[in-house]
């Protein structure tokens, strides 16, 4: 095989894995949108906050230390202990559940009958709020996330593919990041379990009922409030997983919240209401983006990954306004 061909394969594989990472974030959106009709712009910030909390708990940081120091003139930063990873993750999940409860009680509950744009605006407000809150609680410096995940390229794969190029061509082996591969696996496991949960458990069925018709769900005795807390908690958990994966990759910092923006084209493609759509959309965006940058990027100055995903999704939408898997919006006159 020619080196070029092998490079293209590498780009595609990396694209697929990048796509899976996008899907992780997109999943959280889909869950909340399905169950409450809300487009939760804060999903990205939730990932950031979850990652910050995890690192903070793990490293024994004192919450709000910056603020306390400013008010009281003290100079404290850490408790001095380290919390084992598994316990830290469990505690963070707990924090996200508390978050879900608070959001439901103080925001969702009061905005129940409002138009979608109002709800969307509220989630933007929530995103800003959580951004500032997370920074004040744990500090805004960049943190490294270490939960024991492997990192760096897979030497094994590089060595294995070293000889695959054709005679006389320089090829250094296929480079695929181990972390990306682990992330892909985790994402697939997550999607499968979420799908099983939604299809085969009672709660899952209740979630689907709520997603379909609030009134009807209420009339069969499903508590909307409980369901919303559950959904936001699951979305919080998904955000935590996304936060761990992305944070392990590039550190826990503000830009993590911007991955939410990357998830949007994924949702546009896959439709806002479909879990498999989030995956397929993510894969298409991931591969499309990387291939475009690889093939055409150099000709037009590069950095096309800033916008290509959106344009791709836009073109899809023009032909299929509800996305690949989304529910067709039928307007009855």
């Amino acid at each position, binding site marked *: 095989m020619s080196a070029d061909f092998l490079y293209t394969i590498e780009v595609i594989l990396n694209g697929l894995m990048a796509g899976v990472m996008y899907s992780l974030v997109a999943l959280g959106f889909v869950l909340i949108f399905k169950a409450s009709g809300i*487009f939760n712009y804060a999903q990205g910030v939730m990932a950031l906050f979850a990652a910050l909390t995890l690192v903070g708990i793990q490293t024994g940081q004192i919450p709000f230390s*910056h*603020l306390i120091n*400013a008010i009281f003139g003290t100079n404290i930063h850490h408790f001095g202990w380290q919390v084992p990873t598994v316990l830290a993750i469990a505690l963070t999940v707990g924090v996200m559940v508390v978050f879900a409860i608070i959001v439901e009680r103080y*925001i969702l509950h*009061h*905005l129940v009958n*409002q138009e*979608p*744009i*109002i709800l*969307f*605006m*509220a989630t*933007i*407000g*929530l*995103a*800003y*709020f*959580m*951004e*500032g*809150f997370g*920074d*004040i609680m744990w500090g*805004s410096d960049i943190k490294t996330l270490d939960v024991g995940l492997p990192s760096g390229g897979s030497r094994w794969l590089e060595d294995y593919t070293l000889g695959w190029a054709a005679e006389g061509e320089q090829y250094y082996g296929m480079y695929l990041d181990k972390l990306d591969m682990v992330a892909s696996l985790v994402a697939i496991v997550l999607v499968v379990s979420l799908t099983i949960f939604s299809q085969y458990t009672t709660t899952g069925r209740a979630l689907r009922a709520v997603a379909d018709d609030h009134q009807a769900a209420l009339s069969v005795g499903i508590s909307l409030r409980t369901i919303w807390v559950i959904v936001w908690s699951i979305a919080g958990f998904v955000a935590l997983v996304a936060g761990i994966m992305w944070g392990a990759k590039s550190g826990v910092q503000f830009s993590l919240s911007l991955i939410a*923006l990357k998830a*949007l*084209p994924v*949702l*546009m493609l896959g439709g*806002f209401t479909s879990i498999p759509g989030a995956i397929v959309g993510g894969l298409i965006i991931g591969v499309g983006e990387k291939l475009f940058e690889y093939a055409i990027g150099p000709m*037009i*100055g590069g*950095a*096309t990954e*800033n*916008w290509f995903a*959106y*344009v791709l*999704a*836009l073109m899809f*939408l*023009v032909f299929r*306004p*509800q*996305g690949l898997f989304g529910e067709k*919006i039928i*307007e009855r*006159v």
Partner: protein
Amino acid sequence: MFYRESGDFKKTYQKDSQTFPIKFDRMRYYFVLAVAFLVIPMFLTDYMANAVMIPFLVWAIAALGLNILVGYTGQLSLGTGGFMAVGAYATYKLMTAFPGMDMVSIILLSGLITAAVGALFGLPSLRIKGFYLAVATLASQFFLVWLLNKVPWFYNYSASGQISAPQREMFGVIITGPHATPVAAYIFCLVFAVGLAWLARNLTRGRLGRSWMAIRDMDIAAEIIGVNPLMAKLSAFAVSSFFIGIAGSLFFSVYLGAAEVTEAFGITVSFAVLFMVIIGGLGSIFGSFVGAAFMVLMPVLLKNVLVGGMGWPTDLAAHFEYIIVGGLIIIFLIVEPHGLAQMARVLKEKLRLWPFPH
């Protein structure tokens, strides 16, 4: 008792459809204009002009533009930053290519150029609605910023990638460039703000405005009464972008003086203007001004109170700004989803009846 309408009956339809039917309101409006044009310039400090008044006017124009698109026509757009950038860069190219052209013409032309670009990027709105459209407008935001960054022609091949406004005068007074006085800049922006507000009022009260609102409220019914959805939506994008382009143009030439596209016109701008429109009130011209005032004043107030008053470090104050903006948005949406303008309207209603409760 002083805010009465009783006995004030309108005998012609013309009088009935005035902008300020109540005499008190009309007087107050003229008073505000007089203060803005005559009184403020006398007391305006450089700091107040640069930190508060000029950005307020510029953002008010942007908010006005976005309100036309989101508030009157119901098309959610997150591309405001990109369109402001188009206005700014158009101004830069015009200023450098035609050194003899006066600023007013340049700014109006920049607005028209942005209107054309806006109409083009508004085409997807014919097929895509709601959130999907919002995400589609993000495409225009990111693409435009990338384009203006990548193609050197836009910034005249300068090494830094920055654009700066050369010095220009209007009636002998320097308006742009490092030697411009804040008062001159303020008046210049004020004229545009008042003029554009007047334009917005006229467009929204007539046939075009009604077609926009019809599309917003029920686009199927709008077709029934003869509204061509294509023309209505594209005109909304075009007019909105005209305003936003002028805002970007003033932002660059008069306020900032120099700009780099990814910093000055990124997605945070799009969100900021959207907040102004929501907090101020969708579908309200007055609301656009109020929302802009809020978003401009709040960081200034916070900084003065927290950093100046309580001695907190600036980054902590910045984080608090996020918390407060976010929190206020949520509170507003819960308490009064129709924004400050609606609150003002309700207050007015109560005032009309005062001292009676209802």
